C-alpha cells in the first residue's frame, strides 16, 4: 500500500469529488470525510463550507480528528455554532450540497436502511434508526460512506428504506425535491462506486490499490455495473498526504 494507509487514500479520494462551491455535512464516525473536507478546503476548494455533525461546528479547525462528531472540541476555530434548527433547515431546503450518509444495508440503487434488518415486526437486527436519511430526497447530492464492505452491508434489496436511492423513478419524480440528485458516490475500504448508468444502478468507479474488480464483486451482495476498464483509485499525492497529516495530528487515519 506504499507510504499511506487505506484511510488516507479514502480521504484523498473523497476530497477529489468535492467542489469549491460545496456546503457539506457529516454525522457520526466521520473522521475520514472530515479529513477529506479539510483537505479539499486547503487545496482546490477554499470556499467549501462544512458542518461537523452534532458539535454544530461550521468550518471546524479542530486540533485533531476525533472519534465523536458531537465533541465540543470540534468547535475550535469554527466560524459559527450551528444549532440543530439550522442543520435541519439546510437539509430540507437543499442548502447542503453534499451530505455524508451510510446505513446498515445499502442496495444497488443506493437505497439505505438504518432501521431494522429482517422482518420489521420481529427484526433480526434493530438498527439505530432513520435519523437524517430521508433527506436523501432533499439535499443536492449524497456521498455514501461506509467503513467496511461485505455482502451483509451491500445487499440485493434493503429490508427497510430509510433513505431513498434511485429506485422507483416515477415516485422520485413525484416526491423528491426538484434539486435533489440522490446518492452520487459510494466510498468503501475497497473502492469508489457511483450511479452513472442508464438505470442508476451502482457502478464500480475505481478500485483501491491492491484490490481487484473480482474482489469487490465477491464482497458485494448484488451485481455491480462495470463500464469499460475499472481504474485504480488515485493514491494521495505527496502534497495531499502532507496536508492530511497536518490535519490528522493524532494519526487516527494511520492506525
Amino acid at each position, binding site marked *: 500500500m506504499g507510504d499511506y494507509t487505506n484511510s488516507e487514500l479514502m480521504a484523498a479520494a473523497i476530497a477529489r469529488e468535492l467542489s469549491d462551491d460545496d456546503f457539506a455535512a457529516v*454525522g*457520526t*464516525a466521520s473522521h475520514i470525510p472530515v479529513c477529506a473536507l479539510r483537505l479539499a478546503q486547503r487545496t482546490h476548494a477554499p470556499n467549501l463550507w462544512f458542518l461537523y455533525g*452534532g*458539535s*454544530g461546528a461550521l468550518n471546524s479547525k479542530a486540533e485533531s480528528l476525533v*472519534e*465523536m*462528531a*458531537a*465533541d*465540543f*472540541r470540534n*468547535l475550535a476555530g469554527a466560524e459559527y*455554532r450551528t*444549532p*440543530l*434548527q439550522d442543520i*435541519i433547515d439546510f*437539509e*430540507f431546503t437543499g442548502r447542503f450540497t453534499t451530505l455524508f450518509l451510510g446505513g446498515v444495508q445499502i442496495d444497488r440503487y443506493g437505497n439505505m436502511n*438504518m*432501521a431494522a434488518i429482517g422482518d*420489521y415486526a*420481529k*427484526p*433480526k*437486527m*434493530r*438498527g*439505530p*434508526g*432513520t*435519523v*437524517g*436519511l*430521508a*433527506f*436523501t*430526497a*432533499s439535499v443536492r447530492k449524497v456521498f455514501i460512506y461506509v467503513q467496511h464492505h461485505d455482502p451483509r452491508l451491500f445487499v440485493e434489496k434493503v429490508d*427497510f*428504506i*430509510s*433513505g*431513498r436511492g434511485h429506485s*422507483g423513478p416515477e*415516485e*422520485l419524480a*413525484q*416526491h*423528491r*425535491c426538484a434539486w435533489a440528485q440522490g446518492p452520487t458516490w459510494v466510498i468503501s475500504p475497497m473502492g469508489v462506486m457511483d450511479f452513472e448508468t442508464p438505470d442508476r444502478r451502482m457502478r464500480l468507479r475505481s478500485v483501491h490499490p491492491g484490490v481487484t474488480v473480482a474482489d469487490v464483486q465477491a464482497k458485494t451482495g448484488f451485481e455491480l455495473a462495470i463500464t469499460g476498464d475499472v481504474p485504480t483509485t488515485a493514491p494521495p499525492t505527496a502534497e495531499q498526504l502532507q496536508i492530511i497529516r497536518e490535519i490528522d495530528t493524532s494519526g487516527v487515519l494511520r492506525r
Partner: protein
Amino acid sequence: MSLRKSKIKSLAEAVADIPDGAKILAGGVHLSNTPMALVRQLIRKGAKDLEIIPTPATGLWVDMLIAADAVRKIHVSYIGLEFLGLAPNFRRAAEAGKIEVVDVDEPTIFHGLRAAASGLPFVVFPPIHLLTDLPKVSPQVYKSIVDPFTGKTVVAVPPLQPDVCFVHVAKADIYGNGLSLGGRHMEDIITKASKRVILSAEEIVDNAEFCADPTRTTIPGVLVEAVVHAPMGAWPGACPGVYDYDRPHLLEYNEMAKKNETSSYLDRFVRPHADDTAMIAALDDEHLSRLRMAR
C-alpha cells in the same frame, strides 16, 4: 415586600413527583450535555413505563433506562452510542419486542417538538417521507394531506409534547436561568415544548452573572420549574467547556451492556448511592480531574 423564590431542589426532590408513564425527554446531543444525573435519579427512584421522546441523536440515557426496565415506549430517530456503535439494551429490547418502538426520524422529532414549542396543531413536510418506509410502519405519525395553496400532496406530522424535560448546563442561577458553554443546540425548543422543565447545572452562579450579559443566557428561567446543582451531572458524557467524556468508563459500560450486564453496572455505579453526589464522591478523583482538565 416579598422575596423572589429560589428554584433550587435536590436531585431526589426534582424527580420525586414524575409519575410512572410520563413522557420524558433528556436534552443534549449524543454524549454531550446529556443530563445523566437526573436520569440516574429516575432509575434510583424506580421509574416505570416511561414514554421516551429523545432528541434526534442520542442513546446512552435511553439505553440505561431501558436496562432499568423503566421504558414502555420510545420514539426513535437515532438511538446509539455514537462512536461506540449500537445501543445494546435498546437493540435487545427492540428485537425482543419488549418496548414499543415508534420509528420516526430527525426532522419528525425536531419539528414535532418545535410544533409543541410554538403551539401549532401539526407540521407539514414536503413529501420526502413518502419515499421511505416510515409512513408504512408509523401511519399514525405521517398523514398525506393536500396543500390548500398548491393542490400538491404534502405530509402532516403531529406535535410532540414531553411531560417533563431535563436539560443540563454549565451554569445556572437559582431562578432557573441557564448557560450552556457549547452554544445552542435545541434546548431553546425542548424547554418551550415541555410541560415541565428541570435544569441540572455544574455550577450555581449569582443571578448577576446572567444580568451582566443577557445575550449569553441560553435558557430563560421563566421556563424552568426546578434547578438542581449536579457537578459532573453529564458524566460519563461530556459537558462542553467543563469536562470531556469519560472514554474508559463508556467502554466499560458498552462492554457490560453488550453482555447484557447493565443491571450489574447499575448495581455497581448507580443504585448503591442515594444520589449523584455520593456516586461522584465514590469515583476516582484523579481520573475525574483529568477529564476536567482536558480542554
